[in-house]
């Protein structure tokens, strides 16, 4: 069957199976087996089927398009590679100008290649509404990125489903929540919510797949919100705990801030372009980069779409100028509509910022660790938070260099800030949460500096090793029943599998590997990012700091990850009660760890034939297939003085080698420092803490962001709220109460005067008179029979007389 038919259907079923599972558990969950145990089998079965379907889709894709770049392209790529090497020999240091030329040449060859093969499929399953221009539909947009995301999400979700069966077994029976104390001083007892957990997991998987497969931005938004609500449910899974419910609310509200921006971006796009869909003849991508669909050779460069130009030139049109093609291109050249494009890009990025917890909106992610650990692994590290990065990647063609610069800066701030906070955190899950923040920052940063493949590659590799790390931490927490690393130590002997799989995760996240030879998955993605950042630095000297911060961040990452590992697994046990109680987790929990650690090691491995070229791995090549055309060309911002370099430029040895060495050195320095402090104990951590007292408390307080937001947003809002409430109470309520009182007073008076005097008066008067009459008549009613007879006779006589004398005449 043709891939264009097969792929959407395979992915459709992979997408809808979790929904079916959700519906089943929703209605029959509590009746599934003992205490809802069957729910876990239903959900796990559904996600396993999704996994199989996703893998089939992957095979269909590779069968059609190959794992490698593209037949046509690979030839030219190799040719280019040759060209690189030759130029390297010829002139070791290239000028910027030369590079630009080269990029342009590459762009042209690439464009020629894309005309041959169609690299994405798009279409609609169902049209929801169509009002004039507005068309809402459930559609698909499938390229290799979609397929890879499907496979990645389903692999991790399957592992986590299995893991959760073991981790959540407490919920199978009545639960005593020791963190909730009721008013009567007892701990909360509640029925287990095992089935509910799997219900939410299924809904989450459905929503995540929905985001990935969505063919238009409106559909993305719908599933974006569904993912948000799943996150809300899962963070607040222990909703009896105050902290959990607050964290759930916080996550939800902070995400609303981001979504507001996203709606603005959607409005800008729809208002100007009149469509929501990505692909197609009049899709967003086609309008922004006309060459992307119709293969126009010169159309890959970013071009302000006609709709935006017209929208921006409203005044001129009102003045009588006709928006014909010539006029539009004149307007476009004068810069009209460019701002609107930036607004659209920034708006969409704003939504991604909320979902991916980027710098100003990052505060919800650490608190989200209140949820059960499998949730943290699946939702808050591997997939949902990656959705923001995914959307940036998906929307990449629309972003102007200015927007990309903003993305890079935000990502850079996030990665550095989160990394520093992670140094001082002692809660094992919080360390990982800040590490997640930091890595998400790396991804955004990578995308922002032009490393599309680097960023997405890091998204994939990070998903594997971060879910692995979280599940390991969950295994530890499950064993020692505390989150506090200061209570742990020496657990390596008790739970070796967890310890070594976690070590794999740590090595992967710091990007460990033999420089220039091979390494774990993180090695390749991080090197790619740093190389691209290095290239970016050369292009934009103004923003050179970005590269140094990112490189420094790598060192900090290594430090805090190994601090975590050493504090948890090595040394002597600090709390013997916890230590004695600890045990290795059951197989249902550690088997997923092993599976994931396999992926964490090998997911980005390059091909054996070209082992030393990090860009030769199957994953990288598949991602290259999905690369939005035109992004390979270096592009310069029209407003800001920034140039986004061509990504393939960073594959050059000039950048690749120094970046690899820098990454290795920074990671090793962080690793060595952590080892020195926490393993060899050359310096006591307490002394360091005292030495950097203010800095320590600054980091301990998480840069005081919560306090800052409290001061800037929460307090004023509360104050305004109180003021308005006071106004309401004193002013509006006063007026209303006053008028009510006045009306009441008036009616009381009216009642007393009119009612009593006239109405009651007349009625009472009549009643009194009739009563008196009755009393008088009562005297006649003697009850004496004979008197009545006399009266009858008298009456007869009277009638007679009347008849005789009055009527007869």
């Amino acid at each position: 069957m043709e891939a264009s038919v097969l792929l959407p259907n395979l992915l459709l079923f992979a997408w809808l199976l979790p929904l079916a599972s959700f519906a089943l558990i929703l209605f029959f969950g509590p009746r599934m087996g003992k205490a809802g145990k069957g729910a876990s089998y239903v959900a796990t079965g559904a996600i396993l089927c999704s996994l199989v379907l996703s893998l089939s889709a992957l095979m269909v894709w590779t069968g059609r398009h190959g794992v490698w770049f593209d037949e046509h392209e690979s030839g030219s790529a190799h040719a280019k590679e040759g060209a690189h090497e030759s130029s390297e020999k010829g002139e070791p240091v290239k000028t910027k100008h030369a590079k630009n030329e080269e990029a342009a040449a590459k762009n042209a060859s690439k464009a020629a290649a894309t005309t041959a093969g169609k690299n994405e499929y798009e279409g609609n399953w169902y049209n929801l509404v169509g009002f004039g221009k507005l068309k809402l539909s459930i559609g698909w947009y499938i390229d290799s990125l979609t397929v890879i995301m499907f496979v990645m999400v389903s692999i991790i979700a399957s592992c986590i489903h299995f893991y959760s069966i073991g981790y959540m077994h407490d919920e199978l029976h009545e639960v005593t929540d020791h963190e909730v104390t009721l008013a009567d001083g007892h701990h909360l007892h509640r029925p287990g919510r095992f089935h509910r957990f799997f219900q939410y997991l299924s809904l989450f998987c459905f929503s995540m797949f929905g985001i990935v497969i969505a063919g238009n931005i409106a559909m993305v938004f719908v599933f974006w919100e569904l993912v948000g609500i799943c996150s809300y449910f899962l963070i607040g899974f222990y909703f009896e705990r105050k902290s959990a419910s607050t964290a759930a609310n916080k996550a939800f509200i902070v995400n609303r801030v981001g979504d507001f921006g996203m709606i603005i971006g959607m409005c800008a796009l729809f208002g100007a372009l009149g469509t929501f869909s990505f692909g197609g003849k009049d899709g967003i991508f086609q309008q922004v980069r006309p060459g992307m669909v119709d293969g126009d050779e010169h159309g890959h460069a970013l071009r302000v779409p006609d709709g935006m130009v017209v929208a921006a030139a409203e005044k001129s049109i009102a003045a009588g100028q006709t928006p014909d093609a010539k006029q539009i291109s004149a307007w476009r050249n004068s810069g009209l509509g460019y701002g609107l494009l930036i607004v659209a890009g920034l708006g969409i990025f704003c939504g991604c910022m909320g979902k991916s917890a980027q710098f100003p909106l990052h505060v919800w992610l650490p608190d989200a660790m209140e949820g059960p650990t499998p949730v943290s692994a699946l939702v808050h590290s591997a997939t949902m938070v990656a959705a923001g990065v995914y959307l940036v990647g998906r929307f990449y063609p629309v972003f102007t260099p200015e927007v990309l610069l903003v993305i890079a800066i935000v990502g850079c701030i996030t990665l550095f800030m989160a990394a520093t906070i992670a140094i001082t955190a002692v809660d094992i899950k919080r360390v990982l949460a800040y590490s997640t923040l930091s890595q998400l920052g790396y991804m955004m940063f990578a995308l922002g500096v032009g490393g599309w493949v680097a960023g997405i590659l890091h998204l994939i590799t990070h998903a594997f090793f971060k879910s692995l790390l979280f599940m390991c931490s969950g295994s530890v927490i499950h064993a020692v029943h505390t989150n506090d690393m200061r209570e742990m130590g020496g657990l390596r002997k008790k739970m070796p599998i967890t310890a070594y799989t976690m070590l794999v995760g740590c090595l992967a996240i710091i990007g460990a590997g033999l420089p220039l030879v091979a390494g774990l998955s993180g090695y390749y993605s991080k090197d790619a990012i740093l190389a691209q950042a290095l290239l970016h630095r050369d292009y934009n000297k103004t923003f050179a700091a970005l590269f140094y911060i990112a490189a420094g961040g790598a060192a900090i990452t290594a430090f805090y990850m190994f601090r975590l590992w050493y504090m948890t697994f090595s040394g002597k046990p600090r709390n013997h009660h916890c230590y004695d109680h600890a045990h290795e987790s059951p197989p249902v929990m550690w088997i997923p760890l092993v599976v994931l650690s396999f992926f964490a090691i090998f997911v980005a491995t390059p091909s054996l034939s070209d082992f030393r070229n990090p860009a030769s791995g199957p994953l990288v090549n598949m991602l290259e297939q999905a690369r939005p055309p035109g992004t390979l060309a270096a592009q310069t911002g029209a407003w800001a003085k920034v140039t986004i370099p061509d990504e393939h430029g960073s594959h050059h040895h000039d950048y690749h080698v120094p970046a690899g060495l820098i990454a290795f050195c920074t990671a090793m320095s962080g690793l060595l420092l952590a080892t020195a402090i926490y393993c060899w104990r050359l310096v006591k951590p307490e002394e360091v803490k005292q030495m950097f007292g203010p800095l320590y408390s600054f980091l301990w307080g998480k840069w005081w962001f919560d306090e800052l937001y409290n001061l800037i947003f929460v307090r004023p809002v509360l104050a305004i709220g109180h003021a308005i409430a006071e106004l309401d109470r004193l002013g509006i309520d006063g007026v209303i109460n006053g008028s009510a009182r006045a009306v009441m007073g008036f009616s009381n008076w009216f009642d007393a005067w009119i009612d009593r005097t006239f109405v009651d008066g007349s009625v009472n008067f009549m009643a009194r008179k009739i009563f008196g009459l009755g009393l008088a008549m009562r005297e006649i009613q003697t009850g004496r029979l004979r008197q009545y007879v006399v009266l009858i006779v008298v009456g007869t006589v009277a009638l007679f007389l009347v008849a005789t004398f009055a009527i007869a005449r």
Partner: protein
Amino acid sequence: MPDLQTIGLSHYLIVGAIMFVCGAVCMATKRNALGVLMGIELVLNGANVNFVAFGSDFLRRNPAYGIGLDGQIIALFVIVLAAAEAAVALAIVLNFYNNHSTVDVDRADELKG
């Protein structure tokens, strides 16, 4: 004055009137319930006399006043009603006597206002 020689309608009417008035006075003066009952019989009888007199063809009278045999039939109805009334009244009196050990109608004033 009516003609004393020829017995006419008015003679009968006068007799009926006297009996009626006697009955009424009897009802008004007798405290014995049975006396009252007898007064009623007298009143009814006085009325009956009138009916018969109006329906009689043997009396001197204005022919316009004649009601024929109807007068006698109505008189019969009155007699029957009187009998029925007497039966019920007697039952009431006996009941009253059982409850109050007296037949004095002045004692039966429980319905006074």
